[in-house]
């Protein structure tokens, strides 16, 4: 689904690389959680995968263009922005060139947000907003879901619901998931693989390998 080879990235060309020779192969149908300390380059790697940033060196090969992105929070999010859940889904649907208003209802139903379709996004809780972003990402029937810290600013109940939706998509529909995670428990519970970034280098583990390594430590 995704192949990264010899990837180097730095925000400042004169400094040391934030991401230093990253290599990663994400198999189709897997659920990879990217973990690491704050500022290690987890979110940067996601932005590189999405094409939001360009690598200094190396290649990123994506074997699908059906990608759904669920942000941690919209950059510069304005909770007073006058837009309803339906309107937000509509503009995304039209950007993808898809038709059919009913699609909104069926997708909102999948994430348990149908009754909020006419609510302003500013009136939603963190968890509800995250579910709406999942709904938006599902519109293009993605083969790859990319998430940036899905449980940040979300209550425990909503966290459970969000992970259950994502895991369901991964297990039942074979959607490949790449998720930046600060919540190690959630990563171990839901993922098939863990990609640990440390000092600019990254290593891919299966969940069992990673759990065993943690127990040794």
């Amino acid at each position, binding site marked *: 689904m995704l192949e990264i080879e010899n990837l180097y990235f730095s925000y400042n060309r004169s400094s040391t690389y934030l991401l230093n020779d990253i290599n990663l192969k994400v198999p189709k149908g897997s659920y990879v959680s990217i973990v690491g300390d704050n500022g290690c380059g987890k979110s940067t790697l996601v932005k590189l995968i999405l*094409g939001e940033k360009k690598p200094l060196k190396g290649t990123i090969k994506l074997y699908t263009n059906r990608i759904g992105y669920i942000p941690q929070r919209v950059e510069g999010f304005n909770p007073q922005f006058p837009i309803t859940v339906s309107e937000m889904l509509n503009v995304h649907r039209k*950007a993808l060139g898809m038709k059919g208003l009913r699609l909104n209802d069926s997708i909102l139903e999948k994430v348990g947000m149908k009754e909020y379709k006419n609510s302003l996004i500013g009136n939603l809780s963190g968890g509800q907003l995250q579910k709406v972003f999942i709904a938006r990402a599902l519109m293009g029937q993605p083969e790859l879901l990319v998430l940036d810290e899905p449980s940040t600013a979300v209550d425990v109940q909503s966290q459970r619901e969000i992970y259950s939706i994502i895991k369901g998509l991964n297990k039942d529909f074979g959607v490949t998931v790449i998720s930046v995670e600060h919540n190690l428990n959630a990563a171990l519970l839901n993922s098939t693989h863990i990609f640990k970034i440390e000092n600019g280098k990254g290593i891919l583990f299966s969940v069992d390998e990673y759990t065993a390594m943690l127990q040794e430590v």
Partner: protein
Amino acid sequence: MFQYSFMRNALLASLLISILYPSIGMFLVLKRQSMIGDTLSHASFAGVALGVLLGINPILSAFIFTSIAGLLIEGLRVYYKRYAELILVIILTLCVGIAITIISMGKASANVNSFLFGSILTVSDRDLLTILVMNVISITALMLLYNKLIYTTFDEEGARIAGIKVKLVNYIFALIVGATISASIRIMGILVLSSMLIIPVAASLQLGKGFKQTLVFSILFGFIDIIGGLIISYYINSAPGGVIALTSVFVLFIVLLTRRFYLVP
């Protein structure tokens, strides 16, 4: 009062403006560029001064210079992502600097008052046609870009990932804003222009509705402001510019008070 042709023309111009200006203003407010009307009106002013200095048609030079200023504002966003208002001040400084320098050199004489307050009562048939053409072009462009503009304004990163050419959309929008303002500055004046772009949207945002409804209410408030201001100015024998601006703020206060006492529990 509408037996006079100047009042009929003023009314028609007001109608057209009350549709176009809040439609553009909606995106400007949400992009945190509320002061852009001021900036681009001054750019238009500088454009006229440059036109007179260089001996070319001032309307054309105003259009070109305002469009360039609009594009510059968009271009500078790369350097000041979180400071949209700062960019407006930079361009405003540039434009006022150019205008004052040229005028004070005595190279171009321009009636500052006409730019400040405009002259909606002297709208000629030709002016009306210019506004009509601008309306048709701008509204058509806005309708074609409507969803992309909403997406880009709300979530630029998400829009880019969804495949929208965000920069192109923003540049086209900047051109629409520049062209609209340069075409109507001499009629509207800086004061009315800014009030019509922004205040109806400010009132409408208080209603807590979705995008489409907020836009419709912005147009409705814009219509009330400009027509109300025009009629009141006729009866109190005052320049319409100031009265329209006052009416818009008055309507905004009524909406705020209504919201305070009736809409919010």
